[in-house]
């Protein structure tokens, strides 16, 4: 249980930090050049024009970190799912934990919430097992 929790927390932190770098730094730098974005948004604020250093840094972040983050996120999902099995979480709690791991900043809250639950359950579980 301890090792599953540790693995989950490490991956949640890595993925959470990368998510912030990617979504809150990389995506604005790469996409806020005044043109449309992802074929969804017709225009963006023209803060970082194409060719500027900021834009290029953004492109680097979204190109390399974006793909790397996707695969790391899969590892995160596996560790989170493994922990959910060990800790016998109910389905809603599991799904909220997994999905919140995809949202910048919120992922840290989800990690905190999951860790707190595991610790709380361990604290109540120990006296019970001591009695038998």
């Amino acid at each position: 249980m301890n090792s599953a929790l540790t693995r989950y927390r490490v991956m949640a932190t890595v993925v959470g930090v990368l998510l912030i770098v990617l979504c809150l730094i990389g995506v604005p730098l790469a996409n806020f050049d005044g043109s449309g974005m992802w074929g969804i948004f017709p225009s963006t604020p023209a803060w970082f024009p194409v060719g500027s250093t900021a834009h290029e840094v953004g492109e680097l972040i979204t190109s390399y970190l974006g793909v790397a983050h996707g695969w790391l996120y899969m590892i995160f999902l596996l560790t989170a799912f493994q922990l959910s099995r060990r800790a016998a979480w109910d389905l809603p709690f599991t799904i909220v934990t997994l999905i919140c791991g995809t949202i910048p900043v919120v992922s840290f809250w989800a990690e905190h919430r999951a860790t707190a639950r595991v610790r709380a359950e361990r604290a109540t579980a120990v006296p019970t097992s001591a009695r038998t």
Partner: protein
Amino acid sequence: MPELLAPRYWAVHLLALVLTAAAGVLGFWQYDAWNARRDAEAVDLTRVAPEPLSALMGPDDPFPGTKIGQPVVLGGTWVPDGTVYVSGREHEGRKGYWVVTPLAIPGPTDPALPVVRGWVADPAEAPHAPTGAAEFVGWLQPSEGSRTADDDRTDDVLPQLRVADVIQHVDQDLYGAYAVVADDVAPGAWPVGPTATNDGTGGLARPGLEQLPEVSTFTAVRNLLYAVEWWIFGLFAAFIWWRWTQDVRAAERAPEAAEAEPVPSDP
């Protein structure tokens, strides 16, 4: 009725379906983007705005590798005596010849660029080569390779459009490239088709473009990787749903098993 089909679980089934479907669709979105970006890289140059040849290369420069198929505005003087025919070229399924006449840029003795004016089934049917000044747009192409040797250097038929072979037929230097007369370029006031001056295409069929930029393996590979990631996420969502159904069924059986067991602890 199986426990899993109970109305209180419908939301879970629906969520699993939505998540799996969404991941699948997002994967296809990225997959399409991957295809579209590769296609764009392969053909789009022929429709970009033409540039003056001098902006891309001088007579002694190597071919600008990223400019295969780039439209260039060509102004110069035809060198009709340098006309050659390049064999083995297909047009609508028939084998024939490209008709190539060098264009000296700009004056008659300046370095020349071989220009593919069109296609004929037989060189004897080719119209007379144009003379005098000309201005038109052509697609820039690199000199062809050196796999086939010109086995008869006395005639004006070449096995391929190699600048080193064409140079035997002219008195001046040649550019390290050739051009195909363009008939369809980006909108604008370009000398193309009816507005071109003396482009020498009369009486000839349209030649095809032999060389288009090759698409690198890594072009838009990010989109392909994202597509695969999305599909794996979809599978993972389906897997979690499946694990959950197993749990529900196990829980459904457990109380029955408990009831069937004797209760030894109770005295």
